[in-house]
């Protein structure tokens, strides 16, 4: 397996969906290739970073704009 193929299989590997045979080749390559190992680690960190960054604390969120509050309240009056 080449680095290029490893990159293709990355998603299935991290989700545990890579078939056993490919998995063996994948892990063999990984054990020999520091660069692909670094890439795998960063791919996983990227997923986690996205999740963590979008789970905002309340003080990270700008308040709802006043005109949108007014629009929502007006829409409610009509219902």
């Amino acid at each position, binding site marked *: 397996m080449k680095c290029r193929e490893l990159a293709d299989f990355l998603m299935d590997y991290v989700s545990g969906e890579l078939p056993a045979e490919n998995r063996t080749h994948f892990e063999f390559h990984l054990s020999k290739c520091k660069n692909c190992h*670094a890439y795998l680690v960063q791919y996983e960190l990227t997923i986690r970073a996205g999740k963590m960054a979008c789970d905002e604390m309340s003080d990270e969120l700008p308040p709802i704009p006043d005109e949108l509050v007014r629009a929502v*309240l007006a829409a409610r009056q009509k219902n």
Partner: protein
Amino acid sequence: MMASTTPVDDEATLVAQLRAGDEAAFERMVRAYGGRLLAVARRIVGSEEDARDVVQDAFMNAFRSLDRFEGNAKLSTWLHRIAVNAALMKLRTRKRKPEQSIETMLPSFLDDGHHEERFQSWEEPVDKLLEQAETRALVRQQIDALPEGYRTVLVLRDIEGLDTEETANVLGLSVNATKIRLHRARQALRTLLAPHFRSTAS
């Protein structure tokens, strides 16, 4: 995804007031949760205008279905789900935009199949970095910088936790195309984050 902090001290009281038809309570709910719902909607639908429509739809839907809200659930979680559904509805009815290319954000390979780039290790632990507000804001900015069709898949799958079939269905894509898009979106986000996360120690 919900943050641990709740902008309302006493959700139970607010819910009781809402059910009693209290006008002021409705406005309190909109002000307390609107900012969060707007952020969620914006991430999914992209445009500010559509996101505002989504928030308005979400509050109307919440208002109409208040009697179905179960007391033991969190109001914030319930509203979040309603907003995601309203955003999905928006995506379904919206015209597909022309695709932006993502190629330049994907890894490139030499003819022999090796990576062209040598990946420098990242500052660790990344979790620690992500406790900082600036880092978290930076990651959100980079997600926003992804080409639209890729950002949406990444947000629905990795952030909102929809499964592949559901995501494919909403976006009118095949399951396979959805998987490819998610993989590319993650790779592109990695590329965008790399200059910021690179370890200074190595």
